[in-house]
C-alpha cells in the first residue's frame, strides 16, 4: 500500500490536506471580504500578521495552544494547523484581488442579463478571477510544501526528518535528500496546479483530465494512507519521543526496537522534540515514552538548586516528583550520565591555565560561549552564572551538532557540551570541573506514560531490561559512531540491541 517512501507519504499527508483546507477556508473568506467592504482590511490584516510569524515559530506555537485545549499537541495536528494558517494569506489575497479586478462592465452585463448576485459570482466573477486565484494557490502550494519540512520538531513526520536528522547527525547526504525531495515535490505540485489551470482556461479536455486525474490520485493515496494511520494510531502504536540531539535519536531507536522485539507492538519515533515539548507530550499522552535526564527535570521542572550532588538522591527525588505530580512512570536509569558541561579546546585551556569553571571567571569577559538552542534559557546556565559570577563577552546559540566544530575551530572559546558526546575526546576538548557544584547530575532515565503501563505492561517490562545496560563509555562510542563514523542512529541502535539480545 505504501507506494512512496514513508517520509514522502507523511509530507504529502501534511501538505496536500493543509492546502485543501486552506483553499476551502480562504476562497470563501476572500469572497466575503470582497463583498463586505469593511471586512477586507481586518481579514487581510490578520492573515498578514500570521504570515509575519516565522514559520517554525508558528508551528511550535501550536503545541502549547493545542495542549491548553486538551487536543493532541504533538504530531500531525499542530503541523497541520500551522500549515493551513500559512496557506491562507496568498489564496485569500489573490481571491480578493482577483474579484476586485473583474471589469465593472462585465459585472453590469451579468446584472443586465438577469443574474442574481450568487449567479454573478459563480458564473462570471469567480471564473474571471480564477487565473489570479490559481496564482495564489500556486504560491501557497510551494510555501506549504516547503514549510512542511519544519513539521519535524513538533513531532510530525515529513521530508524534514531527513533534514533534521541529517543536521543532528552530521549526515550531509540526508540533508540534501530532504532538501531536494521537498523542492522537487513543491515544483511537481505547482506544475500540477498550473496544468489544471491551463487545461481549464484552454478548455482542453485531455489536459484537464490528466491533471485532475493525477491530483485526484494523489489525494486518494494521501487520504487512504492517512486514514489507515489515524486508525492505527488509536489502537496499536507506541510512540517514542526524541529530543534534538544524536544521543536521543540513538536511544529512541533502542527503546522502540526493544519494545517491538519483546512485545511485537509497533513502535515509532517522533524526532526532534524540544525538551519541554517532549515532557509535555508525555504528560498529555501524545508520546508514550522517552529518555530524559534527572538533572533536567530537577532544574527545569522542580526549580531546584544543584546542592545535593549525590546522583542517587537526585534520582529518587525526581522519581517521586514525576510519579506524584505528573503520574509519569520512571522505568529506570540507563546507567550513564549526560551532564551539561563547559568544554574548551585542550590547547587553549592549558594556555589560559583553566581547569575548573572558577578559573574561567577572570577570562570570561574576553571570551565567547556557544550553547545549544535551549542552554542560555535553562536554569543550569542561570545557576552557573550566579554561582561563579561568570559573564562572557558574547553568548551564541547554535545547533548542538555544530557547536563542537565551532569550538574546535576557535569560532567560540567555550561551549555547553554534553558529557557523553564522543566529539569531546575526538576533537581534543577538555571538560571543565564544576568545582562549586552548580550543575546537577544528569542520569539518563526512561520515562513512560501511565497509559503505556495500563495498556502495554509488557512494554514496560521490556524497557526495564534496558536499565543499567549503557554506561558512559558505551554511550560515547555510540554517539561518536553516528557523529563522526557516519552511521545512522537506527543502525547503531540495532547493533547495540543485537549485542544485548545475544547476551541474554
Amino acid at each position: 500500500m505504501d507506494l512512496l517512501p514513508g517520509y514522502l507519504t507523511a509530507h504529502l499527508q501534511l501538505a496536500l490536506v493543509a492546502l485543501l483546507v486552506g483553499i476551502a477556508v480562504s476562497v470563501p473568506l476572500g469572497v466575503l471580504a470582497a463583498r463586505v467592504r469593511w471586512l477586507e482590511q481586518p481579514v487581510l490584516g490578520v492573515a498578514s500578521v500570521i504570515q509575519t510569524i516565522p514559520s517554525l515559530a508558528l508551528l511550535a506555537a501550536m503545541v502549547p495552544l493545542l495542549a491548553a485545549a486538551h487536543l493532541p499537541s504533538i504530531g500531525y495536528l499542530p503541523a497541520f494547523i500551522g500549515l493551513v494558517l500559512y496557506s491562507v494569506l496568498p489564496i485569500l489575497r489573490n481571491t480578493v484581488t482577483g474579484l476586485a479586478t473583474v471589469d465593472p462592465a462585465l459585472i453590469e452585463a451579468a446584472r443586465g442579463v438577469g443574474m442574481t448576485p450568487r449567479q454573478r459570482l459563480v458564473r462570471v466573477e469567480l471564473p474571471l478571477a480564477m487565473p489570479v486565484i490559481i496564482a495564489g494557490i500556486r504560491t501557497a502550494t510551494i510555501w506549504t510544501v516547503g514549510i512542511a519540512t519544519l513539521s519535524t520538531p513538533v513531532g510530525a513526520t515529513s521530508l524534514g526528518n531527513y533534514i533534521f536528522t541529517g543536521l543532528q547527525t552530521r549526515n550531509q547526504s540526508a540533508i540534501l535528500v530532504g532538501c531536494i525531495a521537498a523542492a522537487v515535490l513543491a515544483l511537481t505540485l505547482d506544475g500540477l496546479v498550473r496544468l489544471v489551470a491551463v487545461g481549464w482556461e484552454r478548455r482542453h479536455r485531455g489536459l484537464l483530465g490528466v491533471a485532475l486525474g493525477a491530483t485526484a490520485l494523489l489525494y486518494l493515496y494521501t487520504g487512504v494512507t492517512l486514514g489507515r494511520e489515524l486508525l492505527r494510531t488509536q489502537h496499536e502504536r507506541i510512540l517514542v519521543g526524541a529530543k534534538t540531539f544524536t544521543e536521543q535519536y540513538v536511544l529512541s531507536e533502542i527503546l522502540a526496537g526493544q519494545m517491538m522485539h519483546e512485545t511485537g507492538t509497533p513502535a515509532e519515533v517522533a524526532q526532534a522534540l524540544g525538551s519541554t515539548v517532549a515532557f509535555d507530550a508525555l504528560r498529555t499522552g501524545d508520546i508514550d515514552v522517552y529518555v530524559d535526564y534527572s538533572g533536567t527535570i530537577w532544574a527545569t521542572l522542580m526549580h531546584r538548586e544543584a546542592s545535593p550532588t549525590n546522583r542517587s538522591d537526585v534520582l529518587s527525588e525526581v522519581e517521586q516528583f514525576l510519579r506524584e505530580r505528573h503520574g509519569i512512570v520512571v522505568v529506570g536509569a540507563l546507567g550513564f550520565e549526560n551532564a551539561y558541561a563547559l568544554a574548551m579546546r585542550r590547547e587553549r585551556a592549558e594556555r589560559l591555565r583553566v581547569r575548573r569553571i572558577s578559573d574561567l571567571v577572570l577570562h570570561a569577559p574576553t571570551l565567547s560561549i556557544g550553547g545549544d538552542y535551549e542552554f542560555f534559557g535553562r536554569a543550569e546556565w542561570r545557576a552557573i552564572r550566579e554561582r561563579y559570577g561568570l559573564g562572557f563577552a558574547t553568548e551564541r546559540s547554535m545547533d548542538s551538532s555544530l557547536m563542537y566544530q565551532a569550538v574546535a575551530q576557535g569560532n567560540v572559546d567555550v561551549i555547553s557540551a554534553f558529557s557523553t558526546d564522543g566529539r569531546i575526546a575526538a576533537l581534543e576538548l577538555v571538560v571543565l570541573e564544576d568545582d562549586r557544584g552548580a550543575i546537577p547530575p544528569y542520569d539518563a532515565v526512561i520515562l513512560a506514560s501511565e497509559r503505556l503501563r495500563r495498556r502495554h505492561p509488557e512494554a514496560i517490562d521490556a524497557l526495564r531490561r534496558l536499565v543499567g545496560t549503557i554506561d558512559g563509555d558505551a554511550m560515547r562510542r555510540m554517539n561518536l559512531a553516528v557523529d563522526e563514523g557516519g552511521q545512522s542512529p537506527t543502525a547503531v541502535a540495532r547493533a547495540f540491541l543485537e549485542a544485548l539480545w545475544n547476551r541474554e
Partner: protein
Amino acid sequence: MIEVRQLAKRFGNTPAVREVSFGVSAGELLVLVGGSGCGKTTTLKMINRLTEPTSGTVLIEGQDVSALPGHVLRRGIGYVFQRVGLFPHMTVEQNVAVPLSLLGWAAGRIRERVGEVLELVEIDPSLRHRRPAELSGGQQQRVGVARALSSEPKVMLLDEPFGALDPLTRDRLQQSFVGIRKRLGLTAIFVTHDMIEALLLADRIAVMNDGRLVQVGTPHELLASPADEYVERLVDTPRRQARTFDELMAGVAR
C-alpha cells in the same frame, strides 16, 4: 407598451435625469439622443433597473417594473451593452445561452434557439465555439444582439450598441438590426449620441439635454420644427452634410 412617468435620478446632490416622461408603443423604435452626460443612458438603465430611480415610475405592459425582483425583470428584457459586455471566458454559444439557462430552459431547447438567433444575426455557425476575443468588433456586437434576442423579449434596450464600430461595419449592423426588428416586431429603446443614426433608425426620436427631455417627435417633425436651439443645432449637422453631399453628387453628374 412602455410608459415612463416623471422618472428622475440624482447621484448625491447632482441631478442626472430630471422628471422625464415619455411612452413607447408596441413595435415602435424610440431613439434617445443627446450629448454625453445628458442622462440618456441613465434613463435607459432605469427602465430595467440596472440603475434604481430616485423617483418616478416605469410601466411595461401596464405593470410597474418595481413590482418584480430586479433580476427577474431583467431576464424578460433584452439589453445590448455599449462595450459589448460579452463574457470573455465563455464561447459565443455559451454567451448567447446565458439568458436561456437563467430562465431554466432545457439544454436541447437552448441549443436549438441559440442556432436560430445566431442565424438571425448572421453569425457563421463555425464561430459558435470561439471566444469573444477571437471575433471582430462587428461580430462581437452581432453576438451581443443575439444574446439580447435569445429569450424572445418583448422589449429591447440598446445602449449605443454600434458606437465603437467603424462606419462600414456600423452601417451593416444598422441594416441588419432594422431588418430583424421589422421581422420580430420588437419594441425598442435605442440610445445614441449620433443624430444621423437616430434619424435613420428611429420611428420617433426623444432628444435629451442636461437631464431633461427637450423634444419627442418623428424624424420628420424634428427636422421640420425643432423645439429649441439645441435641437436645431443637433439636426443642423446632418442637414448641412446632406446638402454638401447633394452638391457633390450634382457636380459628379455634370
